């Protein structure tokens, strides 16, 4: 009896009764409903795209999407299997992968090295140079398209995938350097000094300390860069290279009713960055917070 009484007294501050719990849940519910509604709203086009992609072409325009639940279901994956036998699409996918992975690798490697140098190495003009890098952040990409197009033609690499990789790398680097430098500066100085005294050279410090400690920031830079370049249309279009975005765009122009190709292709193009994002989501959030708040 006495024990029960003290227990009630103890918890009365929280009032953790069933009624209170329901009340609390109710108080939170409006916000949760709102968030769920926004999420659903954002999902509508994606779901629509997916449904369209699994309908036979003949039905897309004539029948309602709910017919996929009819007996027998109209749903079919034949659109997808056709696509994977389409050399144009698989080629475009390869190009996209080559562009986005390639330029992301360049940006991460060069960005991390430069970020380390700007953060921890002493060299003349370091801070001015860094201010210059920050300044490059605001240069609009569109401004460089025509000059770069001409430069590439002069160099003889016009129209190659490499030219697009280099272009993306150049425009991704200022932000990568900026973010990584700011993150690396937050690594305690003592740790690096201690490593130097322990006999480590700069490369060892970079590989064994900076990279593992900077992993959240590096991962978030990588994801950013990957997503952005995967979805790019304008740069490849300008340089006459055909990744998936350009390929879909071309289908649209040639046959206005080629929805059975466009829908599944778009869905494939969408699912890869989504998977990458969810795979590295943990680092993404961590890195953004760590980089900015410190």
């Amino acid at each position, binding site marked *: 009896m006495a024990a029960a009484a003290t227990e009630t007294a103890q918890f009365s501050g929280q009032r953790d009764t069933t009624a209170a719990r329901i009340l609390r849940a109710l108080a939170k519910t409006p916000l949760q409903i709102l968030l769920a509604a926004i999420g659903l709203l954002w999902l509508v086009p994606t779901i629509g795209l997916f449904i369209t992609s699994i309908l036979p072409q003949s039905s897309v325009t004539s029948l309602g999407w709910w017919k996929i639940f009819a007996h027998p279901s109209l749903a079919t994956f034949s659109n997808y299997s056709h696509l994977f036998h389409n050399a144009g699409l698989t080629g475009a996918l390869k190009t996209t992968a080559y562009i986005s992975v390639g330029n992301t690798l360049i940006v991460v490697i060069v960005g991390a090295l430069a970020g380390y140098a700007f953060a921890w190495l002493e060299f003349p003009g370091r801070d001015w140079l860094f201010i210059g890098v920050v300044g490059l952040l605001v240069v609009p990409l569109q401004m460089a398209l025509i000059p770069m197009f001409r430069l590439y033609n002069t160099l003889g690499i016009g129209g190659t995938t490499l030219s697009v990789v280099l272009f993306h790398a150049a425009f991704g680097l200022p932000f990568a350097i900026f973010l990584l430098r700011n993150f690396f500066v937050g690594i*305690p100085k003592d740790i690096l000094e201690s490593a*130097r005294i*322990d*006999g480590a050279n700069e490369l060892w410090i970079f590989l064994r300390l900076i990279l593992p400690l900077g992993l959240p920031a590096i991962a978030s830079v990588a994801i950013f860069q990957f997503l952005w370049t995967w979805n790019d249309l304008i740069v490849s279009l300008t340089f006459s290279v055909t990744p998936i975005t350009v390929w879909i765009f071309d289908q649209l122009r040639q046959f206005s009713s080629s929805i059975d190709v466009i829908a599944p292709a778009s869905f494939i193009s969408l699912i890869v960055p989504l998977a990458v994002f969810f795979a590295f989501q943990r680092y993404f959030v961590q890195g953004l917070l760590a980089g900015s708040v410190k």
Partner: protein
Amino acid sequence: MAEVVFDEVSKVYADGTRAVSGLSLDVGDGEFMVLVGPSGCGKTTALRMVAGLEEISSGALRIGERVVNHVPSRDRDIAMVFQSYALYPHLSVYDNIAFGLKVKKMSKQEIDRRVRNAAEILGLEQFLKRKPRALSGGQRQRVAMGRAIVREPAAFLMDEPLSNLDAKLRVQMRAEVSRLQRDLGTTTIYVTHDQVEAMTMGDRVAVMRKGELLQVADPQTLYDRPVNLFVGGFIGSPAMNMIEATVTRTNGALAVDVGKQHLELDEGTLSSRPALRAYEGRTIILGIRPEELEEASLAPETPPDRRLRGVVELREALGSELMVHFTVEGTREALTEDVKELAQDAGAPTAERPRESNGSGALLVGRFGARASVEEGKPVEVAVDTRSLHFFDAETSEGIYDAEPKEKGASA
């Protein structure tokens, strides 16, 4: 193993701050040298110059046979324990300790042998797999020590390694670090602002102030013969009482007048401080350590001309002893730059309670036996051990010893 020699080493930072000026100091092979001084006096800067983390503005620094001014940290063969411990947060305790050995591409077996040996010495065996964040402060401190000892370097450098521990652990680790250093016999430079740490740990102690070296000596010499007022006031706790006094001569023997009172000096005092004769009739600063004072009834053999009479202001019972603050009429506290700086230094116990004379005279602190009968507000008679008084020049603050007062005690 090697000696570390500073030869007129100075450091001026880019912003013009003169952190260390003309430091000359020989740290012998295997010696435990403590650099002590109030915060901001340049101890860390001096240590970082040895580590190669700070460029040397002028002078030469030798480790062993080599002048290392332009040798990078990694080639100096030294190990450093940082105040923050600077453990690598993503590595286990084992890998933290092994870091310096892996850099040197030592064989796996040798690394393992050394790491396990160090872990055993430091009692870290069961923590080897943990990450630093899962360790207590004391354990982190030990990992930092472990990282230093496995390297078997020419010298250890330690920058206030115990200052982040709580008081009890600090005392324990103090003893452990001392023991470890003695067992290994590695040359060590240890920086602290805590004079108790300095006195208990150091083979020799170097007292610094505003970038300058004031005195290097073994702890006892530092305590007995401080070269100046600053060292006298910095070493010892509670701090030395410093009051103005006049040197006089009565029937052939020297004495000092403190206010209206008279303290007879020993023959021994004069022979150990011949320079004092020259101060006859002049005002000097008299330093009396609290432990040289005793309530008269507990020291009945002290003759009446070696006693001071005062009024008790405050009585603090510590059980084992009594701290008694009393004023002596007609006296004045020494107020030189040194004294002011000492009072400002947060590490000094005097900072908590500014010794202010309440008009009638200077406030002195005495460390009396627990059975002393003193009451606040009542007069007290205090026996002074006049053999251990300290005398300082009122103008220069230098200690008054030999005919040539300029003795830095650099060699001991």
